[in-house]
């Protein structure tokens, strides 16, 4: 019986290559396999340690009531509430309804705005002379009369334009500001629980001159002892500046002084009106120079490619052949809607075009300033990192669940005629990090080496390895991760100088969110610089669900949809729970610089708007999108000849 069963097992489970004696390098032998499964994992000092084989999910960008704009919008939650919520506890949202995640996050960065940190109430309260300013008086009265949301938007825009009344500019009056920063640090220290939950110290530097968004989140690797030695860098003069070069100087000064480590993550290039990934610097109107590209590459290791205010991976106008590029796009103008978008700006706003231009700059200046890994995060201003479609707590407190948010306006500028509705806000996203341990150091180090990916809110597990020797059999192994590290580099890594006659091969794998939707396909996006100095891009479908065949145009047919919008349901009757494949670049030229990154797409599911219609029973506005195809974007692997 046992023998018969064994031969049966061998016949349908073991591909022939397994039993090939001492096969070539691309073959897994039982000896190698045994090594990969070597005995018991090492004993860990941390109780409840997670498997080293799973990514850690978190949010690198969350605001609480300590952010002056969030406070203005009515957010009352503190950093401590935010950490409690992220750890999986139930908290009371500012709108007075209980909120809880479907499952805990592994880490969180409370990144409150450094300008006016903790100051919203102080701004009005602590400074009577503020009311002497007529504009400030108007806002003050609006807030008293319950029109805080309107006042808050105007205050934020005034801040962006630099027209905030002097009396309202906070940050020089020392004690309350210091208290706010120290409280932020203290909250992170209290909730940081190595091995179980990581609470990072961080803040957001909110450069927003004339409404053009150049925001960066600064994340500390260190604990309170080092972070307490500095105050966050602000954008307001005389102590601060709105030029990222000055932020990098501040980061350098911090590292030199304390021996600590910080990194910065930019976001929302889509609201920068062509300034986020410049070839020509907006501050000087001169081409970026050697100093700029070196400093940017050094300090800005990651980019937040998706969040509530639009997704920034690609734009349909820049990538006309990419049928998935048109996803949660915000391309109306800059952050405060004061200047309309023009087509020439797009190239300097989106992830993919930045990765392409980075190759160009590297050829000219020797360093690629846009060699960043990818994450997603929320940028929620509620203290609640709740980005699941069926449990979406909005971007700001007025957008917490209510019948109104289906029809309310998010931003409106009468001069430019730009209107953005609340329904256009996306329930996105999260950062996934392949860290060996759930600690500040380990997660930060993984961010620094760019072994990260971003999702639009779902928690799929995604692997992306590049190397010269991956073979089809590697996609059949019991432990693709082990083979991936063994024979290649993970996401965020580098391939250099192709060995003679070799072509880049990629081991890709994706596993659906355990409580989420099946997967449609795994794609590889390639960008390269040709010998004339022009850049190109190409998208390859490398693994997909079902037995679809690419059509005459080379495109894979759609996976279909099971979404019942009226009931806000879907079924996993289409798609696949897991996709694994090995892909070889069919168009490789060893003399040209290139990058490759993975994009994983889920089958369609109901968007948060559909859940709202179902729960509140009200009617959505004309044109409201009701389905979403969640996705993940991996950090690229770069090929440098």
């Amino acid at each position, binding site marked *: 019986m046992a023998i018969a*069963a*064994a031969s*049966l*097992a061998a016949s*349908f*489970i*073991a591909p022939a290559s*397994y039993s090939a004696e001492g096969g070539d390098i691309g073959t*897994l032998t*039982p000896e190698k*396999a*045994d090594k*990969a*499964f070597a005995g018991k*994992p090492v004993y860990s000092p941390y*109780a*409840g*340690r*997670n*498997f080293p*084989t*799973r990514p850690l999910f978190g949010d690198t960008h969350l605001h609480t009531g300590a952010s002056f704009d969030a406070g203005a919008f009515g957010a009352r939650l503190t950093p401590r509430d935010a950490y409690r919520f992220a750890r*999986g506890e139930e908290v009371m949202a500012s709108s007075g309804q209980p909120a809880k995640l479907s*499952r*805990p996050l592994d880490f969180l960065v409370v990144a409150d705005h450094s300008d006016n940190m903790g100051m919203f*109430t*102080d701004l009005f*309260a*602590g*400074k*009577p*002379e503020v*009311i002497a300013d007529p504009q400030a008086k108007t806002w003050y009265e609006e807030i008293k009369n319950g029109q805080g949301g309107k006042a808050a938007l105007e205050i934020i825009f005034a801040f962006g334009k630099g027209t905030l009344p002097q009396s309202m500019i906070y940050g*020089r009056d*020392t004690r309350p500001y*210091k208290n706010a920063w120290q409280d932020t640090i203290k909250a992170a220290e209290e909730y940081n*629980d190595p091995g179980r939950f990581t609470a990072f110290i961080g803040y957001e530097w909110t450069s927003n001159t004339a409404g053009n968004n150049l925001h960066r989140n600064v994340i500390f690797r260190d604990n309170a002892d080092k972070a307490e030695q*500095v*105050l966050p860098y602000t954008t307001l003069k*005389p*102590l*601060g500046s709105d030029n990222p070069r000055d932020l990098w100087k*501040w980061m350098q*000064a911090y590292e*030199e002084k304390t021996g600590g480590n910080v990194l910065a993550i930019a976001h929302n290039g889509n609201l920068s009106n062509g300034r986020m990934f410049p070839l020509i610097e907006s501050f000087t109107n001169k081409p970026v120079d050697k100093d700029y590209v070196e400093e940017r590459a050094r300090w800005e290791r990651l980019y937040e490619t998706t969040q509530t205010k639009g997704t920034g991976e690609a734009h349909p106008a820049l990538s006309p052949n990419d049928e998935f590029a048109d996803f949660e796009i915000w391309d109306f103008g800059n952050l405060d809607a004061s200047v309309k978008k023009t087509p020439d700006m797009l190239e300097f706003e989106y992830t993919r075009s930045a990765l392409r231009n980075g190759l160009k700059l590297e050829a000219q200046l020797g360093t690629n300033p846009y060699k960043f890994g990818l994450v997603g995060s929320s940028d929620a201003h509620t203290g609640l990192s709740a980005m699941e479609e069926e449990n979406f707590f909005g971007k700001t407190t007025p957008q917490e669940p209510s019948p109104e948010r289906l029809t309310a306006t998010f931003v409106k500028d009468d001069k430019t005629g730009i209107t953005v509705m609340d329904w256009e806000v996306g329930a996105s996203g999260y950062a996934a990090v392949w860290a060996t341990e759930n600690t500040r150091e380990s997660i930060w180090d993984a961010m620094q080496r760019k072994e990260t990916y971003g999702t639009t809110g779902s928690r799929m*597990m995604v692997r992306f390895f590049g190397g010269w020797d991956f073979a089809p059999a590697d*996609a*059949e*192994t*019991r*432990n693709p991760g082990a083979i991936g590290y063994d024979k290649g580099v993970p996401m965020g890594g580098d391939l250099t100088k192709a060995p003679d006659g070799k072509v880049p091969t990629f081991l890709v*794998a994706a*596993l*659906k969110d*355990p*409580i989420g939707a099946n997967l449609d396909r795994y794609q590889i996006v390639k960008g390269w610089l040709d010998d004339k100095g022009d850049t190109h891009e190409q998208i390859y479908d490398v693994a997909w*669900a079902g037995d679809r065949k690419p059509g005459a145009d080379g495109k894979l047919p759609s996976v279909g949809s099971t979404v019942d919008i009226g009931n806000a349901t879907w079924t996993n009757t289409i798609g696949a*729970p*897991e996709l*694994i494949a090995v892909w070889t670049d069919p168009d490789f030229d060893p003399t040209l610089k290139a990058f490759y990154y993975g994009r994983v797409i889920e089958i369609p599911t109901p968007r948060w708007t559909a859940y709202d219609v179902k729960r509140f029973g009200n009617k959505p506005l004309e044109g409201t999108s009701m389905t979403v195809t969640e996705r993940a974007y991996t950090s690229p692997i770069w090929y440098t000849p």
Partner: protein
Amino acid sequence: MLKRVLKEPLVHFLALALAIFAGYALVGAGERQERIVVTAPKIEQMATLFTKTWQRPPSAAELKGLIDDYVKEEVLVRQALALGLDRDDAVVRRRLRQKMEFLNTADAEALEPTDAELEAYLTSNADAFRIEGMLAFEQVFLSPQRHGGRAREDAGSILQILLSDPKANRSLLGDATLLPPEAALSDSASITQTFGADFAKALDQAPLDQWIGPVVSGFGLHLVRVTERVPDRTPSLGEVRDAVAREWTNARRSELEDQQFAKLLGGYTVTIESLAGKETGR
């Protein structure tokens, strides 16, 4: 030596302070001469703030800018107070209230709980600090895409191999997957994170050291063996001291606030007029 003294930032501040002091001591605010003194400690504080941001002391020009701004603020604040702009102002009241609350809870920050207090807190809130049970396990995965209608049957065959031959090479059984083939001691929450709730529940009920299955998850079928089990337990104080101290401080903070307030309230006779004009004492 003198050179070094002249390089000391503090000496610069003091020199600047004297200069500013001389300048402002004579400045009037209209009819009545008010004095504004920018003290050396105040200047030092401003300089410290600058230094903390920039990791270098301010230049003379920068420091002058900071001091000028402080003076401007001082003048405006005094004028505002003189005009009574702070009275009957809901926001000023809220701020003052906040400051009082902060003062009241600041005492809590300084409290150092004794071990006995923490022990007592842990005992009365044992559930909040319970250490979850954990288990370690191995699993062999069968993908529904690969096996289609034969998945259960094939799972049965593999289970037979595993049961009859403990030495069977598991790396040759089952399908490729990102799911880990084995997991070190993990609590139910982290197993759920990766495998889903149903799978975690099934493991909870699985016997020790025995291949069973197939267990169904959102991914497919699994044959599983629990290799180790640690039951849940109440930790000793040493293991969770920081967490207990944090929760104890939080609890003490709100307790103290209530006490402080009750004490203050005791100094007042509060009369609340009802809307109809009737008075109700309390």
